[in-house]
């Protein structure tokens, strides 16, 4: 199983298909920002976002979208605040801010948010 650090360091891409995002590591999602929608409820199965950990990856369904590539422009990102599985969720230092860029061929570029990016947890 890949760790989040490995994914960032080795630039391992995730995947996206339609409204489904696949992250190549296991994590608990705390907050997702997609366009101007701020999602913190991941329990729903009919609106917002639904998140599950399966196999060695994490998948998120953005239920208000049909196809993410239709809505997210090339300069936009999906922002996630998450904690890697196995780490203490209550330790704020373990909260990671990620930026997901949609690329061609369903590839999802995963980057850690830098200081340069406006990203409010």
């Amino acid at each position, binding site marked *: 199983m890949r760790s989040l650090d490995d994914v960032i360091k080795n630039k391992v891409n995730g995947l996206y298909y339609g409204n489904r995002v696949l992250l190549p590591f296991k994590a608990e999602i705390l907050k997702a920002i997609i366009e*101007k929608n701020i999602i913190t409820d991941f329990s729903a199965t009919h609106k917002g976002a639904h998140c599950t950990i399966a196999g060695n990856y994490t998948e998120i369904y953005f239920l208000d979208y049909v196809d993410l590539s239709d809505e997210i422009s090339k300069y936009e990102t999906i922002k996630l605040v998450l904690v890697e599985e196995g780490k203490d969720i209550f330790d704020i230092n373990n909260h990671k801010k990620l930026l997901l860029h949609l690329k061609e061929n369903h590839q999802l570029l995963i980057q850690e948010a830098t200081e340069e990016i406006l990203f409010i947890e």
Partner: protein
Amino acid sequence: MKKGVSILFWGILLLNSFSGKLFATQENVSGQAAVPVSAVQFIPSFYMIIPFILLLLMIATGPVLYAHFWEKNYQKVSIFLAMIVVIYYLINDQMHSLTHSLSEYISFITLLGALFIASGGILIRVNKKATPVLNIAMLFTGAVIANIIGTTGASMLLIRPFMYLNKDRLKPYHIIFFIFIVSNIGGVLTPIGDPPLFLGYLRGISFFWFLQHGWYIWLPSIIFLLVLFFIVDSKNDKSIEKEYSGKIEFKGLRNSLFLLIILLSVFLSPSTINWLPGLSPLPFGIREIIMVIVMIASYKFADPDILTLNEFTFDPIKEVAFLFFAIFATMIPALEIIAFEAGKLKEGLTPGFLYWTSGGLSSVLDNAPTFLNFLGAETGRFAMDMNNSIQVHQLSIEHSIHLQAISIACVFFGAMTYIGNGPNFMVKSIAESSGLKMPGFLGYIVKYSFPILIPLFLIIWLILFGG
């Protein structure tokens, strides 16, 4: 995004094609009379205000009560409600009102769009520790700049640096005070500051009249808001200990030049430059064409790294484009009824009445046509013609208190709601896309506008217009 834009395009095209008949008779649509004489004579049915009220209600309740539906369908709802009014006016052969509103909408959205896109390619970063004093300095700077590049330009240029400065302690009140000060009240000193003042300038009010009659209201109002902000911000002790370079970074010189072109082209109107040809019967002029060219160029030639850091997206301007398309269309009957009723009042048009009514309407209507309708009522009351610049100039000298009441109210009250002024909505969208949860339409009014702005507006009224 593409689908949404095409809906708006077809909506405008439909309105435009229906307007073809009018184009033969309308004279110099761009920059001409806000309310043609025949439009004032036609009094629409009172029921035609319903689409406008419905639109306002949906803007207020949609994102809160039925967010999913609203997000997916606000474009269709906007076009549908606009078309009810369009069809009503077509049936009643009142094309001039429609085309006039269309030309104002095109001017509005091209200016807003050009400023939005050009400023999206500019990056300003203040790498200092955010303190209430530094924030006040930035907000005050924004209030001053709003008079040079307009409230929209100042908002688009400064909202991201202001958020970035406060990124570790950012709260909704930061954004709301920014909307109050930079996006609205700041821009009352020059005609460039806010569109209604510019329309007044085009009609004959001198450029410095607004500064002369506004500074002593502007300054205490800005100080009042800054003091309140300071008190609130001083209680925000959320900060992270880290090192700051102390530098102020500025990138995007090319787009700054585009911004300059936009500001200069604001004056490109046959009303201000006699030799400039109008494009009548088209519902836009050379100015709007330049705006569109600048929009394309400033996006195409912008530094991709800056666009990425600004997370540039067309969504905020798309939302403004749709909602204000519907607002510009559905408010036509409301404004015509107001103009008619105001015309009957004559002596009842006291400065206090003008202040509260033009202000109240500017809170939810676009303030530019509101300003013009009240200017029209005022000129009519003194047997003057709003389209005669000498007479409007005379009005501004002889009855300055009335004009002052309208000007101040139209600009200041725009801060009352998210839809009171174009940049309010865009600033909100930018804040939300960075992860900051903003209050809804009603939350903004109840928690912030009423407790903060209404006392300020009451004081202004009591001191200046209450007598």
